């Protein structure tokens, strides 16, 4: 076939593999890009073609990626998440080169990339927003302004995302320093130091609504995800549906997300993020205009393949899915397995994975790009794998997730597997009573110490060492026979 369109995946790791898998199922040829640090990465071997684009920061280099697409005659570019996925200039450049960006239009990305502008758009569509400033803060903060704000207050970078450039100020005295720190972080991460203030909702839950739009105004809501379990603004556990959420609130949130999507004539996948306060009032925070790390939980409860839906829309097929067809079945929970040493303040853990066995069985999905021997480095983020469990209800999903985390065997590096197990068995989590500060407050039981297990391990360790020594000693014994020993001792 001459008209088969080729997709270039401008990403790495598990999400690159996720997109490549969808393409393979649809019979779409693929191109991977990779960097010097990723020469042994799995995604480039999975794709039909692979192009080396440069040093480790090249996934952020729009020109190099467009050049790779031109070179391989790819006509669509899937940006994955992170890197260039929300970059409107990249999206625009892709379109100007006559290619298709798998995601929203560049104008939409530009609008949503500016948190202040998206705040205005949400207001215009009738969504509730948080109290805050509608303008970026001036470089020189007027002294009296610090005293007019109610604390605690969040200082947020106008551009950017992923929790970076967000800082909390607890008092007027520390506000100037906090603003400066947020500006520096935003400048380093996004090249823009504009920040604004938004009121801090205490004990809020972070709930996002998944939408998909055809770009003409039709927007379908695919349920919500609870993402309150976070460390340093990075999500750790996500689930759908959100537990203990009154049906009326769920419906209102979905309607609100749909309204905003329609008003933007939204194209592709988007996650409309809300904070839900203790009184169950929800407030718009931002839209993530891309596939999300946590998209599998939505796939598990809806039975849809979100990446295929993205590809179909990008290829110009009409969005056939009707709201009435969307049915949420059971519950799904995702745990992010990270390369970090939980015992040493969650420091990154690096090195080769010396042994690997990923979990499986009923209701379990593993999204990773791991293989035995893969070297985990500090060049990219510490996400090793996502374990997603589906059950007919939340209780069964938790049981399955726990069983799967128990089955996951990974040697050579530290991971947060034990921490995740403690977390999903903690009483409040099981009840579904969590908010975004849960991980700061929760006193997890000390790491489970099973003395009987330790004794068995100690026995195995001794037997193993003993066997190893015998193996090493035996060949030498053959050389040191009595005759040689006698000759040697006589020499002395």
């Amino acid at each position: 076939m001459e008209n088969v369109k080729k997709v270039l995946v401008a990403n790495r790791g598990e999400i690159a593999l996720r997109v490549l898998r969808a393409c393979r199922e649809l019979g779409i040829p693929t191109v991977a890009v990779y960097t010097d640090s990723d020469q042994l990465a799995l995604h480039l071997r999975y794709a039909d073609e692979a192009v080396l684009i440069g040093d480790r920061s090249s996934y952020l280099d729009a020109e190099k990626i467009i050049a790779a697409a031109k070179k391989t005659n790819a006509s669509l570019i899937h940006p994955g998440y992170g890197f260039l996925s929300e970059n409107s200039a990249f999206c625009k450049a892709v379109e100007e080169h006559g290619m298709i960006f798998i995601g929203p239009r560049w104008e939409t990305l530009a609008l949503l990339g500016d948190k202040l502008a998206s705040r205005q758009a949400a207001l215009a569509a009738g969504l509730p927003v948080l109290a805050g400033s509608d303008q970026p803060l001036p470089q020189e903060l007027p002294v009296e302004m610090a005293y007019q704000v109610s604390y605690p207050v969040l200082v947020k970078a106008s551009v950017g995302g992923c929790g970076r450039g967000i800082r909390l100020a607890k008092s007027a005295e520390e506000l100037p320093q906090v603003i400066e720190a947020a500006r520096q972080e935003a400048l380093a991460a996004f090249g823009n130091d504009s920040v604004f203030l938004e009121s801090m909702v205490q004990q809020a839950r972070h709930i996002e609504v998944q939408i998909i739009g055809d770009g003409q105004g039709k927007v379908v809501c695919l349920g919500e995800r609870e993402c309150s379990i976070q460390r340093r603004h990075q999500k750790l556990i996500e689930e759908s549906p959100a537990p203990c959420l009154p049906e009326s609130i769920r419906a209102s949130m979905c309607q609100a997300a749909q309204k905003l999507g329609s008003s933007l004539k939204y194209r592709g996948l988007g996650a409309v993020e809300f904070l839900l306060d203790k009184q169950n009032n929800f407030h718009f925070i931002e839209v993530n205009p891309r596939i999300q790390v946590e998209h599998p939980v939505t796939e598990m409860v809806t039975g849809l393949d979100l990446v295929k839906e993205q590809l179909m829309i990008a290829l110009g097929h009409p969005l056939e899915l009707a709201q009435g067809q969307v049915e949420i079945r059971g519950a799904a929970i995702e745990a992010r397995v990270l390369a970090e040493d939980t015992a040493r303040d969650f420091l990154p853990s690096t090195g080769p994975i010396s042994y690997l066995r990923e979990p499986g069985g009923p209701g379990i999905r593993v999204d990773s790009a791991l293989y035995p021997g893969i070297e985990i480095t500090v060049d990219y983020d510490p996400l090793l794998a996502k374990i997603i469990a589906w059950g007919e209800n939340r209780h069964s999903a938790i049981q399955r997730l726990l069983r799967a985390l128990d089955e996951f065997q990974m040697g050579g590096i530290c991971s947060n597997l034990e921490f995740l197990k403690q977390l999903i068995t903690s009483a409040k989590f099981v009840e579904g009573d969590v908010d975004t500060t849960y991980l700061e407050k929760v006193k997890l039981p000390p790491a489970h110490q099973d003395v009987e297990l330790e004794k068995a391990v100690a026995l195995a360790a001794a037997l193993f060492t003993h066997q190893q020594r015998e193996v090493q000693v035996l060949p030498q014994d053959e050389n040191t026979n009595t005759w040689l020993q006698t000759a040697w001792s006589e020499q002395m």
Partner: protein
Amino acid sequence: MSLYYITIGKNEYNVHLDGRHLKVNGKPVSGDLRPINELGLHVLQRGKKSMELHLNSLDGDHLEILVGGQRVLAKVKTSQKRVRHQAARAEVGTITAPMPGVLVSVLAKVGDVVEQDQTLAVLESMKMQMQLRTASAGTVVSVLYQAGEQVEKGKEIIRVN
């Protein structure tokens, strides 16, 4: 007869091996460890119970053991070696890189008088920034890396006396 001391976390276990007679902390136990393959996978058979473990020798006397979704690090000492070994203690006044990364900033210079817990450098690794603080008050006597430089895990960056 062989005697092994196995340290797991804060607990130490002693294991006697004498032919088929095994003792853990002085109590007789049964057990047989068999390799499943050459990749380190083993089965510990104890009566009717079989437990799967993955054993891997690390540097020195350490073993990494994967069992039931847990990763256990064990220190193994034989009875002879035990006396001679003594844990090297990190010097209080040095700041070393707890992970490999790039130094974002170095906030101290030689001669600076610093207080306990003062941040002397910022290290970035895996998109995370970490403040390196001094555990003791004193005077900075050496600064071995500049901002922007790559630092390997364990390397000394700053020394305070």
